[in-house]
Each structure stands twice: as C-alpha cells, then as structure tokens.
C-alpha cells in the first residue's frame, strides 16, 4: 500500500508552548485512520498541519513522498479538510459547493457536480438555491462536507464531523465519507469523540494526549485530582464517592489510564481478593463489538465516569451481563499507568 501522508519530526508551538510533538506518522493511501483523545490533545492541530492549512513550527510534511508546504498547488487541489466549525460563504448552497471546483477550473457541468455532492450527503437538489442563512446546523455541516466531496479529494481530513449535529445529519455524514472511500479510494483521517464509530470503521486508531501519540488503549483516562493515601497509593474520587486507586506517579503526571484489558470480574465475596486488588462498582450501560477490537467492549458507568472494559466471550457468558445490571470490576492499582505531563 502506498504512503500518501507522512509527518517527520513535526513539532508545533503556540506562543512558545508546544502543543504537538509527532516524531513520525504515516497515513497509507485509501485507509481510514481515526484520531482519538480528550479535548486539547492536539487532534485539530494535527489535522491542520496534515491539511497544510498551518505551517508546523519544525519538521516536514510529505505528500505522496514529496515535502510540501501550505499553498503548494499540487497538494491543495488534492487534499481537503472539513473543519470542526466550517464556514459557509454568504452565498447560495450551490455557490458554496462549486467554489472549490471553480478554483480548480472544473467548470464543466457544475450543476450536475453540485447535485451529485448534495445527494451524497443526503440533501435534495432543491437545496442548491438556498442561501447560507436558510440552513440548520446539521444541513450547514452537510453542505460544507458536500463542498469537499464535490472535489473528489485524494485525502479527506475530518475534524469532529458529527459533533453537535442531529442524528440524521450524523448518519448522512458517516455514510457520505465511507462512500467517498469506497467509490474514489479517498484516504480518510477522522478526529472524533465517537470512539465506537472510529473503532468500527478505522483500520488504525491513533490516540493523542497532550500533543503526543500514545500506544495502547486510552478509553479510560482519569484526570484526578489525586490525593495520597496511607497505603502508598494515590486516589481520585468519582461522583458517587468511590475511589480509583493508583500507584503514585514518578513525576508531575496528573492523568492516569486503566487499560481496557486491565479489569477483571470481581471474585465472589467468599473468595478473598488479593490484598493489592481494588474494586469498582458500577452499572453496565452497553455491550459492543466493533471491527477494530477483538474482544467485546462492556461500558460500565461508575459515578459519572464511563469505563470501557475488554471482555472475552467466555467472560460475558459466565456473567450473563446485560445493560442495567450491577457489576463489580477488579483492577490492580499497580497496573494503572500515567500519561506524560
């Protein structure tokens, strides 16, 4: 498979504060890559640098093997980004969708291209004559996506494409980007908080935290505040009064993560647990199976925190878990890892 995008030794800073450090990142042509991570983890910055709308403070971005920079014509006509808050020109929907086509001098049969793009995002051709202020938030997002799909880009980067839109718009957006991949081989890079969706469609999932790429699963990030206990541990309190325990960090780290595979079903009470093992009580809210992960995922809410637990089929059968059921999870505080500050 050919490499379409590569970042090498990329570092980006705002006002002297480093917000992204990416020693190496490769995106292969025709693949779907997901970007996950909490707010402020650097997902949007990474997308802007990959889309060449922002010049990285240091490092190199390669497109199809060539080092590229913002406004390079051969790239800006093949690569596009749907920002989190896309702007619609104060014109008609048709003008908005055809803007990029006119820049590329692809002026033949613009009407058909506009209608085709609208159809892709689930909007009727009659939308083409509407003005920008006549659209709902979800429709505006779909028109913005249509403006990008009309270009049939080699690489489409999407920043939270379904955030804050109604369910129908979210479904249309998801369907449209997958059609672009299927029909034109468009490479997709998607930053989203919808982890399940990312797990389901992505070939690779990249976790970001504090502007760095992390290896492993990072669904269960705990941000503290942490307090020391008399047992040489630190603990953070959940909304329902329970504590999550961890071995103290080595430095000034404040965010800990429990691997999805780090939970086990609690033993029956007559069997005493090992002294070091701690337990969390919660309610099962869902059991999911996605394409990217081998084991099904159990979502357990403890207080106001959602924990994602990787569970084998055997585990699910033995426990006969179902949504709404109370469950006690066991974990080893020593296995809780700390994310770099």
């Amino acid at each position, binding site marked *: 498979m050919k490499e379409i995008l590569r970042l090498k030794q990329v570092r980006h800073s705002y006002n002297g504060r480093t917000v992204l450090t990416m020693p190496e990142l490769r995106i292969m042509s025709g693949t779907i890559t997901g970007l996950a991570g909490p707010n402020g983890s650097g997902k949007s910055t990474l997308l802007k640098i990959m889309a*060449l709308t922002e010049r990285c403070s240091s490092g190199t971005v390669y497109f199809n093997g060539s080092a590229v920079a913002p406004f390079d014509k051969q790239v*800006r*006509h093949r690569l596009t980004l749907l*920002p989190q808050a896309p*702007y619609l020109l104060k014109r008609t929907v048709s003008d908005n969708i055809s803007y990029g086509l006119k820049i590329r001098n692809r002026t033949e049969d613009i009407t058909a291209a506009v209608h085709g793009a609208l159809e892709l995002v689930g909007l009727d051709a009659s939308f083409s004559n509407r003005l920008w202020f006549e659209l709902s938030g979800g429709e505006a997002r779909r028109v913005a996506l249509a403006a990008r799909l009309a270009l049939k880009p080699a690489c489409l980067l999407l920043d939270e494409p379904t955030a804050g839109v109604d369910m129908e718009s979210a479904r249309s957006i998801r369907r449209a980007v997958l059609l672009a991949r299927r029909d034109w081989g468009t490479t997709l890079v998607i930053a989203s908080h919808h982890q399940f969706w990312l797990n389901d469609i992505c070939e690779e999932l990249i976790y970001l935290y504090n502007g760095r790429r992390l290896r492993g699963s990072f669904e269960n990030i705990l941000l503290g505040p942490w307090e020391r206990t008399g047992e040489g541990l630190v603990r953070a309190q959940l909304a329902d009064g329970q504590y999550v325990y961890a071995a103290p960090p080595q430095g000034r780290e404040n965010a800990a993560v429990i691997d999805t595979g780090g939970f086990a079903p609690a033993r029956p009470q007559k069997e005493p647990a090992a002294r070091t093992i701690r337990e969390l009580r919660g309610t099962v809210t869902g059991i999911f199976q996605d394409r990217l992960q081998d084991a099904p995922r159990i979502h357990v809410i403890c207080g106001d925190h959602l924990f994602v637990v990787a569970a084998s089929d055997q585990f699910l059968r033995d426990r006969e878990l179902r949504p709404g059921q109370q469950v006690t999870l066991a974990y080893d505080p020593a296995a809780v890892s700390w994310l770099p500050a």
Partner: protein
Amino acid sequence: MDFLISGFLEAIRLLSVGDAETFAAIFATIRVAGLSMSVSLLIGIPLGYLLGYLDFPGKRSLRMVVDTLLSLPTVFIGLMVYALLSNRGPLGEMGLLFTLTGIAIGQAILALPIIIALTASAVESLDASLRLTLMTLGASPGRIFLTSIREARHGLLTAAVTATGRVLTEVGISMMVGGNIKWHTRTITTAIALETNKGQFATGIALGLVLLALAFGVNLSLSLLRRRG
C-alpha cells in the same frame, strides 16, 4: 424668510433650465469626487485588508495612527497639498495647482484613512474560520483576498459611502488647492460658499439641493446593493 423661499424657487428654475454655471460646478464635483474615490478605493482596500488581516508588531499603533487620521481637518490637507503643488513645492513642476487633479489628490488623502480604517474593521469582523475554510477548499492567497473582500462587502460599501460623503461635502481642499476658478475648479461646495458671500442664495440653495440628491443617490445605491446580498 421671503428671501429663502424666493431663493428656493429660483434654485428650482436654475436646475430645470440647466443653468450652465451651476451645472459646471456639479460636473466638476462629480469628476473630482469620482477620481479621488477611485484612487482611494484602489489603494485603501488592499491596505485596509492587510491591516485587518495580518498580525504584526506595531499593528495597534498603526491602527491608532489611521484612526487619528480619520479626523484630519480639510484645511490642513488643503494647506499641505497646496504647499506640495505650489511652484516652491517639490511637486510644483507638475503644474497641478488649481486643477481638478490637484483637488482629487487632496480629497484622496482625506478619503484614504476612512477607507483603510473601515476596511480593516470589516475584515477583522469576518469569521475567523473563513481563511481556514478557503484554504481547505484550495484557494491561493490571491483568491483568499478576493473572497474575503467579497465576504466583507457590506462593510466595504459602508466605507465607500462614508468616504464619498466626506469628499463630496468638503470645502477646505477644493478652495485652497482648486482656487474656486469659475468653469474650471469651482465645485458645488466652493460655489455655495462664494454665492452665499455674494448674497446669491438661489444658486447656493440649488447647489445644496444637488448635494443632497447626490448623497441620496449614493445611499440608495448602497441600499440596493445590500438588498442584492
């Protein structure tokens, strides 16, 4: 009061019969305002765009200077342009003193800060995600400039109308640089000043009505352009 009423009636007659002297002043005003506005828009819009669009050290100070120039007294501009264009001035050899071009130079200096400041404000008020969106759609820097200007068109129209109003109604520059020469550099405002001094209220009122009509025409055009989106 009678002299005002009779002056108003005489003004209507002068305009309806196409009084040559009155219309010479009207055409001179339109020509000189057209020239000065063309120059100030051509220079002022790109400069205003850069001032509103770019972030650079000293931007706030520069904005303060431009805002201060908004209240430049017309007689001061007239004095400076007169000094530059007079025989003893550095541009004296060009022979522009007491010409419509000379007046237009002064009026362009008057209009330029208005165009720059209001264009900069219009560009600053554009949505911050406009540039990002245009870049993602493949726009070049030149295309981003043109599209941003189009997106800020209402603000730019306001800038143009405000500057036109100032240029049409100024007296100081036209009087000092143009010299109020009959048939040549006499504009509506200098003619009103002269006719009023002579006690000829009718011509003054006629020209005042034309000024009002011009201002109304400019505002009507703006309103129609806005309605077209």
